[in-house]
Structures are given as C-alpha cells and as structure tokens.
C-alpha cells in the first residue's frame, strides 16, 4: 500500500500523459491544461517545503552561532523583506518588486555572476586546454578556428595560413617531445596542405576563417549534436519508461514496504 499506491499514481499519470499527446479532442486538451495547473500548484507547496528547509538551516546556524552566522541574518532578512514587498505591492511592472528589487538587485547580481564566466573561461582554457591526446588537439583547433573566425581580426585570415601555423606547432611539439606519432601526423598534414595548395593552382586558397568557422559549426558540429541527441533521447525515454513502469523506483525513498 505504501509503495503500490504511489506506483499506481505514477503509472496512471504517465500513461495518461502519453495518450494525451495523440488525442486532439477538446477533452484531452482540457485534461492537459488542468493537470499542468495542478503540477504548478503542487510545486508551490514543495517551494514552501524548500523555503522551510532554507529558513531552518539558517535559524539553526544562528542559534548555534556557527561560523558566519551573521550572514544568515542577511539571507533571512532579505528573503522576508522581498516576499513582503512582493506580496504586498504585487509583481506587475512598475511595482517596487520589479522596479527596485528586480532591476537594481537581481539584475546586477545575476549579470555579474553570469559575467564571471568570462574569467573562468580564460582560466579553464589556460589550465585544462591541453593537447594531451589527438582528440584534445582537435577540440583545441576547432575552438581556435571558431574563436578567430568570429571576431573582426580573423575576418581576412585565410584558413590555409592558419593550418600552416598549426602544422609548425605540431612539428615543433613533435621534435621537442620526440613523439613519433606527432611527427607522423605533422608530416601527413604537410602533404595534405601541399596537395591543397597544388589543387588551387599554387595560390593561397581563398577560404577565410569566418567561412571555415561557419563550416565547422554547421557540418561536424551539427553531426555530433545530432548523434548526442539520439543517444540522449533513447536513454532518457528508457529511463522515463522505467520510472513509469516502476522498475526504477529509487525515488520512493526509505521506510517500510
């Protein structure tokens, strides 16, 4: 009973929603709208529970005077003040919640946290963007092509010269590390580049970096994304099916059977 009723609810709702997708009848549309509202309402109660957990956590921190307890006052006061202002004066444009709190507290905090990403991108690139393997090297070259192709500086750089520079880097790295694999790869690239040069009549091929970047984004990148999405969809659907059928039931949690 403690397990079977929840499993039955889950199964019923799962099957009902799947059937709903195929039925255009107004009753089916009404069912969808109704249950969507219900899920939102139920979610609101969970928010109370979550907020309760947050408040209890900070009150506990305050009472036991744990390290940094005074910051808990900031969180509690801010939460209380914002919800009072929001509930009291409404959430429409022009209300103090939107015009003061949203525009001058939430927007800058959000934007700053988002902007920090730019710094982290730089440090991650420096720390972890290493051509350790040939796959990692490919990732790097693709990233360079797109990064250069997307800014004005790269607008008039032929892809050919870019690859020549990559090739030189490969050769140097091959000699420095005395890696046969690297040297063979660099040699193959030399042959390839010479062949390309010959093919275009010993003139630098007119392919520029912005076009190369667009190609990378629309050909190999698209293919990879599509493949990942096939996998994600199949894995996701199988997981969802197992939940609906009650095969995957970890969410039922502890307690007696």
């Amino acid at each position, binding site marked *: 009973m403690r397990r079977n009723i929840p499993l039955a609810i889950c199964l019923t709702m799962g099957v009902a929603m799947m059937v709903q997708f195929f039925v*255009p009848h107004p009753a089916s549309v009404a069912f969808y709208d109704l249950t969507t509202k219900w899920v939102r309402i139920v979610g609101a109660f969970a928010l109370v529970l979550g907020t309760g957990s947050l408040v209890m956590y900070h009150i506990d921190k305050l009472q036991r005077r744990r390290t940094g307890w005074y910051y808990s006052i900031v969180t509690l006061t801010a939460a209380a003040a914002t919800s009072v202002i929001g509930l009291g004066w409404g959430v429409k444009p022009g209300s103090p919640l939107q015009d003061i709190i949203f525009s001058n507290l939430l927007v800058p905090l959000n934007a700053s946290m988002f902007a920090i990403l730019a710094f982290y991108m730089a440090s991650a690139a420096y720390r972890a963007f290493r051509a350790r393997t040939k796959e990692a090297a490919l990732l790097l070259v693709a990233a360079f092509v797109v990064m250069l192709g997307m800014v004005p500086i790269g607008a008039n750089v032929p892809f050919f010269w870019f690859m020549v520079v990559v090739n030189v880097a490969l050769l140097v790295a091959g000699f420095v590390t005395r890696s046969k694999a690297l040297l063979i790869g660099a040699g193959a690239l030399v042959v390839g580049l010479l062949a390309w040069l010959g093919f275009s009549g010993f003139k630098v091929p007119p392919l520029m970096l912005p076009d190369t970047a667009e190609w990378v984004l629309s050909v190999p990148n698209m293919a990879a994304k599509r493949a*990942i999405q096939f996998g994600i969809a199949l894995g996701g659907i199988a997981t969802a099916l197992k939940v609906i059928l009650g095969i995957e039931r970890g969410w039922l949690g502890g307690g007696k059977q």
Partner: protein
Amino acid sequence: MIPFLILLLTAGQVAPPVDSAAPPVQRLAAPVGVKAFDTPNDKGKSITVHWQPGPGAAPEAWLVERTDPAESTEVIAAIEPTDTRYLDEGVMDRVKYTYRIAAAAGADTVWSEPSQPVASSAQLFNTARLNILIAMVIFFALVIYYIETAKKGKNLFVRRIAGLDAVEEAVGRATEMGRPIIYVPGLGSVADIATIASLNILGEVAKKVAQYDSALLVPNRDPIVYTVAREMVKESYAKAGRPDAFKADSVFFITSEQFAFAAAVDGLMAREKPATNFFLGMFWAESLILAETGAQTGAIQIAGTDSVFQLPFFITACDYTLIGEELYAASAYLSREPLLLGSLKGQDYGKIIILAIVTVGSALLLLSKIPALSFFTQIVSFFSVR
C-alpha cells in the same frame, strides 16, 4: 478584415480606365474544385476550404462565403490571391455548412459552385503523429523485451565508462582526506529525465559514502528535487546498514534562482574545500562557474549532463565527464542490476534501428533521382512532425 473588404469593394470605383492599347483583358473566371472538409487531427470547430483558380484573369482577392443550415449566408473572409486555402475557425461542431468562393477584382465578383455540405468534429487520434506512435511502440517493445531477458538471468555486457569507474576512488579519497563530497543533482526539475538519472546515481554514491563514512553535501535548486533527493540519501544510508549516520541537513534547498544557486555553491566549495565534486544532471550556463571553482579548490570532479551546450565546459574543467547518454547508463552501470542493464541493451538496438532507417532511407531517397522511382521522396514526409 472589414476595412480591407470595404477598400476592396471601393477600389473598383476609382480604378483607372483600361488603356485601349493594352492587350485585351481576360475576364474573371469562377474558382473551381471548391472542397470543404473537417480539418483533420484537431479539437473540432474548424473547417478547411480548398479551391483552384478558374481559367481566367488573376483576381485581386478571393472572397469566402459560408451558408449555415438556417440559410443565413455571409462573406467571412477576403484572401490574398496567392492563397487558395482557408481555415474557418468560426463554426460549430456537427452543423453542416456549405461554402462558395468568389474571384474578385474591382467591382467584379464571380462566384463558384457551392461545396458539398460539411460538418466539423473533434478527432480522437492525431494521425499526423502516427509516426511517433510507431516509434514508441517499437522502442518500448525492445526495452521491455530485453528487461524480461535480463530477468531470466542472462549475463549482459556493458562497456567501460571511465567516469563511473572513478566513483569508488573519488569517494575513498574524501574519507582519506577527511573532507566532504559535494553532489549537485543538476538544476533541472523532476520532469527533466537527466534529474531522475542523477538522483539514481546519487542513491548509489550515497551508499558508497555511507560505507566509507565520508560526509556528503547535496545542495538543491528545485524544491521537489530536494524532497526526492533527501529520501534517496536517507534510503541509501539505511541500505548500507548505517541509518544513524544520515544527517538531515546534509541535503538542503538553496534557491530556485539559477545564478544565486551558483553563487551559493561557489561559496560552499570555497569554504568546505570538498575532496570530490559530482555535477550530474541538467546544467545551464552555470556549469563552468561550478566546475572551475571546484577545480581551483583542488577537488576531483566527476560531471555528466545531457545538455549539449555545457558538455565542452565539463570536459575541459572536470576530471571525468559522462557525455549525454552515458549519464543514463550510469545507474545501471553502478548498480549492475540486471533489470537496468537490460534496458541498456534495448537502447542499443534502438540506435541500430535508427541508423538502419536513416541509411536505407537515404539510399532510397537518392534513388528517387531516377524518375521511375520518384515516389521514394514520400519517405521524408513520413518523418514530418506536427
């Protein structure tokens, strides 16, 4: 519509006289083949009308006229001359209407024959989604079949997934160092399947944590996920035989605002200096904020997501990354439960079928270049989704 109609009707009065040097003006002809039918695959209250231009001059507009059983007739729309289709959404179900179309130019209007009477109704099955139903039936059959096979105790192979082999080591490391493990079950809701996959992995990780007696911290962004995660961890401690070791405040809710959550987890990592971080589930732009801060505090990091745009950042900044479907395979991989392994096999056959269909389909489509085989072009339309 009305101003446009008036404009159209008055246009004739100010039309310039026809230049006698111009070629003789073709007369307007009535549209032909007027067909009215119940709009398919809808919730009713809609009739579609189709027609073809007659063999005369091009009109300036089409007028659509509807007659209901009470014999009241009205012009309901004026349509651009390039369009020969009208969707009438102002009808009642189960009432028979007839339609007439007129070609209009200047003050001239030439009416067609009326259509057959037609009534609209709501459909019970959307035939345009038949393709999805077929795909669902095939895939469900595969998954269920292999789960049943697995129940009979047939041994199933799973290839190595490096990120998951590292879980044991990562948990052990935390115990040795006496530092906690942070597990972020993503920023998605329970309706995101990645979150469910992550919660299942959390169950397995929590079991190991209980065995090794490390500390676990699970910050949450979604309140419902928070309640489920809490139950999962509690259950895992019980299963590992250490229900007393479960600390109620180890699973906690922070806020549902994306970047506020990221800021708080950043702070948590900077202060707790965890030995290991798990970022599994749904992530958006905050992925690198979390992963880079974690790397700076010196933690081993295992990440996994099905969000294609965030994978590059996890791959760069974390030690191990589960790519897309590997995340879903993880709970089967860690638990080695045959029921879950069976579905992995079903998924693989699903992939084979997809690849087979796109390969054979492509071959046939390319053959459709031969005129006699041009009907193969129909294949693409079967995969249209609406």
